[in-house]
Each structure stands twice: as structure tokens, then as C-alpha cells.
């Protein structure tokens, strides 16, 4: 059952669309990084060593539209699948072969994993491409840097950037994966209560945007849900900001999913 659901979660047009949109969104973020003057050999020789590098390029690419589209990418692959199974009558066929609990567990895990990988896969591909395009190294000039490289500016694991930048980037991708899982499960839990698949897919994104805007308006931007996907968008983002944001959504949506599924089982 779980294997079947996992296959359905990863092999579908929604997942493919999420990966393609993710790559395009990361490329958009990179456009500002590349908006400088032409990199002639004469100019490059005057710049500090590793002024342009693969790590900074990846960090810049995260500061683009990917940060705002994250919740949408996470729900695209499989978050509306429970609603689809129910409305198409497919759920009855499944339940004739396995238990409802087994189905729910498989749905919950496969949706979470597909949402996580829908964000992590484009990020990983993009980082690999950056490693081919730009040199791998850290610019140590304290004044002529593309990013602010102090640990507090790069998020709760920012201290890895100077000594092990690869680990820093993989932690960013890992955080993106967890973000995707949480928002995919949020979408899944909404599908327990909402009957329109487009509303199910759009609601996590709309909630994310409203919360982000309101927190900025009330001068509390560090608490924005964006901090969990792009922990370097603002100076001073800590594990507390990320933990409360992601933990709160994860708990609320998991409870919503299990309560909603219980109500549906009782009704059935």
C-alpha cells in the first residue's frame, strides 16, 4: 500500500511541474546575482578571489521568487490526492483491498515525502549546476562580498558557511525539504475539510503570504514562515523562529488530518 502510494506521489505531472517551476524560480533568483557588468578577464583579475562562487550564487537564487512559491510547490504533487480519491470513487476500490488506517498512514507519509522532495530536488539540481558554472570557494575579503557572511546573517546554522560551505548548503536544502513536507501535509489536512481541489492547493500559499505580510507590517518579520525556507533573508533568524513556525503548522495540520479522517470514517 505504502509503496503504491509513494509511486503515485512521485510519478505524476504535479511533481514534474513542481520540479520545473522550482528550477525556473531559482533561476529568477539568480538573475540579480548575474546582473553585474560583463565579466571580462581584465575585470575578473581585479576582483577578489572567489568573488563569484557557487555557494553565494545558490544563496542568491534562494532569495528570489522560490521563497514565495515554496508552499505552492510543496502541495502540487500529492496534497489533493485524498480529495481526488474520495470524489472519483477510487477510495472505495482501495478500501476493498486494505484498511482505512493503512491507507491514511500511506497517504500521510507519501504526501509529506513528495512535498519535501518537490522542493529539495530542484534545489539540489540547481546547486549541482552552480558548481559547474561558478568556482567552488569562499570569498574571504571582508568588504567586497556578494552576501553578508556573518553567522547571524546566514541563519541558525550560518557558522558552517565559512568552514564547510557544502554542509551549509545541504542544510539549507534539508530545511527546504522539511518545509515542503510540512506544507504538503497542511494541504492534505485541508483536503479533509475542503471539497474544491484548487482551493486545497491555493490555501497554504495564501495563508503563507498573508502571515508573511502581516508580520512584516507589525515589525516582526523574523517570525514569518518564510524564515523556515530562506533562513538568510533577514539577520538574526534562529532555531526558535523556525521551530515555532514549522512545528506549529506541522502539529495543527497533523491534528487536522487525523481528526478529519476520523470524522470521514465515522460518516462513512
Amino acid at each position: 500500500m505504502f509503496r503504491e502510494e509513494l509511486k503515485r506521489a512521485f510519478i505524476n505531472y504535479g511533481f514534474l511541474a513542481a520540479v520545473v517551476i522550482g528550477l525556473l524560480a531559482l533561476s529568477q533568483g539568480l538573475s540579480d546575482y548575474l546582473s553585474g557588468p560583463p565579466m571580462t578577464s581584465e575585470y575578473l583579475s581585479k576582483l577578489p578571489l572567489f568573488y563569484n562562487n557557487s555557494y553565494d550564487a545558490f544563496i542568491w537564487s534562494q532569495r528570489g521568487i522560490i521563497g514565495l512559491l515554496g508552499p505552492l510547490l510543496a502541495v502540487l504533487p500529492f496534497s489533493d490526492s485524498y480529495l481526488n480519491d474520495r470524489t472519483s470513487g477510487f477510495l472505495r476500490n482501495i478500501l476493498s483491498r486494505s484498511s482505512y488506517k493503512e491507507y491514511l498512514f500511506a497517504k500521510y507519509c507519501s504526501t509529506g515525502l513528495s512535498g519535501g522532495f518537490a522542493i529539495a530536488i530542484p534545489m539540489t539540481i540547481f546547486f549541482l549546476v552552480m558548481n559547474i558554472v561558478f568556482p567552488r570557494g569562499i570569498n574571504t575579503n571582508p568588504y567586497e562580498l556578494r552576501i553578508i557572511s556573518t553567522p547571524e546573517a546566514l541563519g541558525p546554522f550560518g557558522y558552517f558557511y565559512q568552514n564547510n560551505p557544502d554542509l551549509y548548503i545541504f542544510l539549507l536544502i534539508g530545511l527546504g525539504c522539511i518545509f515542503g513536507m510540512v506544507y504538503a501535509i497542511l494541504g492534505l489536512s485541508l483536503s479533509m475539510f475542503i471539497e474544491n481541489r484548487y482551493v486545497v492547493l491555493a490555501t497554504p500559499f495564501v495563508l503563507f503570504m498573508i502571515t508573511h505580510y502581516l508580520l512584516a507590517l507589525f515589525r516582526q518579520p523574523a517570525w514569518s514562515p518564510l524564515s523556515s525556507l530562506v533562513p538568510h533573508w533577514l539577520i538574526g533568524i534562529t532555531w526558535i523562529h523556525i521551530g515555532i513556525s514549522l512545528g506549529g503548522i506541522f502539529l495543527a495540520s497533523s491534528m487536522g488530518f487525523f481528526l478529519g479522517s476520523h470524522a470521514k470514517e465515522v460518516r462513512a
Partner: protein
Amino acid sequence: MRFDKICMIDVSNKSREDFKKGEKMKMRSLVTGLIVIVLSVTLVGKAIAAGSFSTYNMTIPKLGGSNTTSNVTKVSSSDKAVVCSDQIGGGYTLNARIELLNGSVAAGYQSISNDQRREYTLNPSTAGSSYHARIATTIFIPVDVQATGWWSPDNPGSCGF
């Protein structure tokens, strides 16, 4: 005898020693004057050649919007420009780059925050006489942001923080 007579005519009532002292004094003041002139020219020239900072205090539009500082003429041959970011409202991180007056980019974006010095190597292929700095918000910032600081298309020295 002839020499003594001439000296007597030139210095009138002064003795020969007084005349020598006077000449020494004249030479001394001439040398001092020359040193003062050389030093002044060097120091003032250096100050002009290094340029000076121009302050900015502006509102940067939200959601990836940008604003430019006033235009400043480059006076030195240095290929460095400097942005001293003093205060940015809300503690946000912004991006700043150096442009020519026609908008072509002389040095690409670098992130800036409070109390931060950023140096830019100007591209020789885009060399011009006047420049401005462009400061932009990222797409994540949903409010207008106030930014203050000073900048120069030359390298006048320390930012003072």
C-alpha cells in the same frame, strides 16, 4: 679694497655680519615657504584625488523596488567605489550596486545591512565620469524601507564605524 667699498655702498650703515645674517634669514623663509607650498599642494591634491563621501537618505520601494542616490563625479583614478550603509529600517537586508548615469552597471549587487562597509571594483569597460548607487529591496520585503548612509565612486577612506 674694492670689494669692501661695494659692500659698504650696498648695506649702507650695516656691518658685514648683519648682511650675512639677513641673507640667511631670507633663504630660510624662502625654503620654509617652498615646503609649505609643496605640502599644501600634496595634501590638498591627495584629498581631491581621493574624493569625498556623499550622503543618502531615501525610501526604497517594497517587493524588489529600487531607488538611486544622487549622481557623483569620480575624481580619482582608483577603480574602487564605496558604500557605507549606516541604518536600514526594520533591520532588513538590502542590495546595492554602482551604476553609470545611463543605468549600465559598473559593479554588481552586494548585500548590505546596518553599519556595513561595502567596496565595489568598477568595471574598466564601463568607465565613466559620474556614477550613482542603486539600492534595492528583495522580493520578500513587503514594506517600503528607509535607508541612510554615505557613498563615493572613489575610495575616500574609512566609513567611521
